[in-house]
């Protein structure tokens, strides 16, 4: 299990250092600094030296590091690091050097609580916030009964929820967020298109609400047994700790008592009938060795009542580009020499709309006749009220013993960021 936990800043200074076991001294941090922080070519998130392994996750120029001296469960170690990051985000609104330094005493309290002797312990944010706070507590003043409530919750079957939650207005917001991954060949054939979906929920519900959630889904275990139906085929789904997996397995119902506030209810993956919201047709021609001409058309392939926003195309140019002359009918296009791309930003693209960028890149003559690697064109966008997989929330029912009315809101968003790629 985890022997030591550190946070380093970009310079390699230690911001947090906690040794859970006596098999290391703090100076083990120096080894990490030499091996990873000051190494410009780190090619693995895990480094093993002798019997010592360093696991690291980078976030906002911080290194979150766990050190072990045994055959540790690598997935568990990384999940623990991710969880720590999420806890910090929830407590401090962000995680960066400033927020870590500003709250270091609290962080020590937290990591003493969520990990004991290297074994991750209850790390449900909602529960943690009931007894690890920034306010000063006079130790004799916390009533023993109050604490018993906390401990019962921290170790109980619904460790993610307090029992005393009260809202005037009971509301639940469901966000279905789909990330489309696309890889299209230069010939325009789809090499791979799939959807990573997250269902994010914000539950502001009193008491201990029992929720049932329904989708127009169908889980396909065996792709060969395809049925005829309008249901969306999900290749797989994963649920938050609160969802009763046995119920899901037996009857496909998603039932749970939600944590208070925001959480990720489920994740799913779909690969069949993925609707690609944007179609990109690039024509890129190398004219001799001195010029490259571009004609890139982007087309919005969805209902004209909807629109894509924040559309950004990053169109690569050769490394020896000196200048690019771009013309666009819509949006703004600019050559960014530092990244060797033309960035074309379209604030808004209506469904059915189509527009084209034409550009010419001038190249300097180089002595080495290195072939241009032609990285793919990358497109980022967001389309509200659209799901690439076709997934729809059928219902969300809330049952609570006080039998209150609750208001539910559902929102759909399909987006791409760094994963929608067209080769040319």
């Amino acid at each position, binding site marked *: 299990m985890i022997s030591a936990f550190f946070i380093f800043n970009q310079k390699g*200074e230690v911001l947090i250092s906690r040794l859970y076991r*006596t098999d290391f*001294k703090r*100076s083990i941090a120096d*080894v990490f*600094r*030499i091996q990873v922080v*000051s190494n410009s070519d780190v090619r693995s998130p*895990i*480094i*093993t*030296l*002798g019997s*010592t392994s360093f696991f690291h*996750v980078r976030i906002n120029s911080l290194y979150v590091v766990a050190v072990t*001296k*045994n*055959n540790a*469960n*690598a*997935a568990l170690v*990384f*999940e623990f690091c991710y969880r720590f990051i999420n806890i910090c985000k929830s407590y401090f609104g962000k995680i960066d050097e400033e*927020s870590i330094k500003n709250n*270091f005493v609290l962080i*020590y309290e937290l990591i003493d609580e969520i990990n004991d002797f290297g*074994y991750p*312990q209850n790390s449900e944010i909602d529960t943690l916030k009931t*007894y690890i706070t*920034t*306010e000063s*507590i006079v130790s004799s003043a*916390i009533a023993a009964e109050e*604490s018993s409530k*906390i*401990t*019962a919750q921290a*170790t*109980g079957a619904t*460790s993610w929820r307090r029992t005393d939650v009260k809202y005037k207005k009971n509301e639940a917001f469901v966000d279905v967020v789909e990330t489309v991954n696309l890889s299209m*060949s230069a010939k325009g054939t789809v*090499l*791979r298109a799939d959807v990573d979906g997250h269902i994010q929920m914000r539950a502001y519900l009193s008491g201990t609400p029992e929720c049932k959630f329904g989708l127009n889904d169908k889980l396909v*275990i065996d*792709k060969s047994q395809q049925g005829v139906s309008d249901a969306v085929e999900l*290749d*797989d*789904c*994963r649920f*938050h*700790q609160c969802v*009763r*997996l046995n119920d899901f*397995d037996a009857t496909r119902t998603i039932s749970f008592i939600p944590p208070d506030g925001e959480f990720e209810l*489920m*994740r799913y*993956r779909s*690969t069949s009938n993925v609707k690609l919201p944007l179609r990109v047709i690039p024509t890129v021609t190398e004219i001799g060795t001195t010029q490259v001409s571009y004609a890139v058309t982007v087309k919005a392939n969805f209902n004209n009542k909807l629109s894509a926003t924040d559309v950004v195309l990053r169109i690569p140019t050769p490394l020896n580009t000196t200048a690019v002359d771009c013309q666009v009918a819509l949006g703004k296009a600019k050559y960014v020499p530092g990244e060797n791309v033309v960035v074309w930003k379209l604030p808004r693209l209506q469904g059915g709309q189509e527009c084209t960028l034409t550009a010419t890149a001038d190249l300097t003559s180089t002595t080495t006749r290195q072939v241009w*690697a032609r*990285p793919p064109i990358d497109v980022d966008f967001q389309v509200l009220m659209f799901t690439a997989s076709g997934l729809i929330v059928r219902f969300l029912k809330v049952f609570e013993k006080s039998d209150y009315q609750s208001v539910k809101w559902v929102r759909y968003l399909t987006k791409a960021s760094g994963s929608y790629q067209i080769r040319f």
Partner: protein
Amino acid sequence: MAAPGQDAKFFQRGKIEEFRAELHAAETKDKKFVKRKTVLKKIVANITMGNDMSPLFTDVVQCLGTPLLEIKKMVYLFLVSYGRSKPDQIHLVIPNFLQDCNDRNPLIRALAIRTMSYIPIPVVTDALNENLRHCLKDADPYVRKTAAICVAKLYAADPRRAEKGGFVEQLRDLMLDSNATVVANAVAALSEIGDRQDGVIFKLNLATANKLLAALPESSEWGQIYILDSLLRYVPEKHADAEVMAERIIVQLQHANSAVVLTTIKALLYLMNYMENRRLIDYICKKMGPPLVTLLSSGPEVQYVALRNILLIIQRRPTVLKNDVKVFFCKYNDPIYVKLAKLEIMYRLARAENANEVLAELQEYASEVDIDFVRKAVRSVGRLAIKVEDASDACIQALLNLIETKVSYVVQEAVIVIKDIFRRYPGKYEGVIPTLCQHLDALDEPEAKAAMVWILGQFADRIDNADELLDDLLYTFLDESVEVQLALLTAAVKLFIYKSKSDKAKELVYKVLKWATEDVDNPDLRDRGFMYWRLLAINPTVAGEIVLAEKPAITTDSDRMDRGALDQLLLHTGTLGSIYHKNPETFIRNATGKALKDSPALNAHSRAVLVPVARTQLPPTVVNVPGPGPSESHERNETAPPPVPDLPAPTTSKPTPPTPPLSSENASGDATDDGSDDEGDADEEPRGRANADPYSNLDGAFGNYLADEPRPMGGRQGDDEDLLF
């Protein structure tokens, strides 16, 4: 959200004397204890920065009287950091500890025993023992779950004493606790104890295993991992027991936490060894695929763990991800470690039906920037040609296109794989030799050069100017690496056999034989030189038959790891061992090996190929790692034992790995292997174990190209380095 802290200002190096003075000043007129809190925060910040604050021990301990939880926690943190180094002063805090152990507040009781057990020195443990015994039976589950881990800490400090105290028995009882969190922590503690080489053996019987499973749904995600992991300590006696258990845990594959998913897969793979029901096994395999793929939408670190595990799993259970090669196509912005791992899986999943798609991807990757990745992509093209006959034409064409790029490392990789393709399809592609010869000058790496020299020698009868080309290459003979020298020697002999009438050939072979036997120190080269010389001298015809004997065709049979080795490695699914594809006892000191346990339910084939746990004791050598780093300085630790002198070097530094599977001249079997991958998880048909070392094929798929293979650093020659800090 909690009010944002403002503590960054305390992150400044301070002097012991100043802090001491400030603490003294705070004893009077400290409204709401703000002063004390401030000084303590400064001290904690300095501990973080690596400044030794231990001289403040007595001063800091004074603050324990302050009735503020925040202060108590900071003092406890101080004690965890320095308590062990102050055995003569620690008694000062024992009364406080004892008082807290009996506090009405369960959080305080738990905090007290948790902190005490972090200070494993006799004074503290003596005081802890009695309280811990009570806490293990505390009415509050939070205290019990904390106490369970305390036992593991006590055991780590002094196993025999913990046993004498009866703590292990108490832990065992806690496995039946009514609270799932307590159960899970008891399991975690017992597993830790059971993993020690000197620890109490921790096994589960069916009844206890079932009780643990009952606690699974109510456990936290971490608790689920501890419980699922412990199932490997249960040995099914009947097929049905394994089958029922697998059905109970399979729902956990849908959990959001990737470690829960991977640990469930580990347990399922384990249980499958004890199952009989073919349909259930197939069903489980099908169920495991999608969750494994879903792990690829986690963070890159988890993706990496998943990919390295998938690589192992599909070798043992090919049906798991048979039709999913596309999901392993690399994204342009994947981190390099993810890309390299994906590439290997793509090769493993390539079959006649998807070879074209895979090839198109590989060609795409061959123009990327990262050299390791490009090299591996080029290798993969060649490996694909060897694996899938239908794709070989397209692969050769792709390789020729790559050679046209004239990028040095691309050309070299292409030459290396083309050599193997010649051996796989004799008589089919020799037409490309002239193209290769044009790029002779581009080859500067030994492996590529040796491959080209082999081609020159082997096909010297078809290359008109083979003698000239060889002559050119021989100019630098004495400066070449042994690998190239050996290849040159053999090539010259082959040339001579083909063209024994040619004076040039005669002259060349004489020159090389003379160098090899007189001017070179390498015994292998010298011996081979003598051997050839005598062969040629005694009977040139026979020599020709021997040197140019028909070679067995190359296959990709050796790609897959031995079944027994896989069974054993898969017991470590999700752990470091699965990342490096090594059993932990071979690279981690004091790690215990695992092996499948025999039982009437164990599948016959698994039993036949069972690999017993190797008793490798890593030698106690110690190497100090250079430190400290650039921006921090600290006192060197004086208590470190002096480096033990190196053990006498093993006579041969390491048994040379059996010749790389691919190029080994004694590869057996015929050339058709396409189907064999798919039969891999048939449990019924034991194949003879050809190889004495079950791990010899570990790195098979990419020949001896392992530049990017993840591996633990140090310890490669058997003398393990350890970090002494």
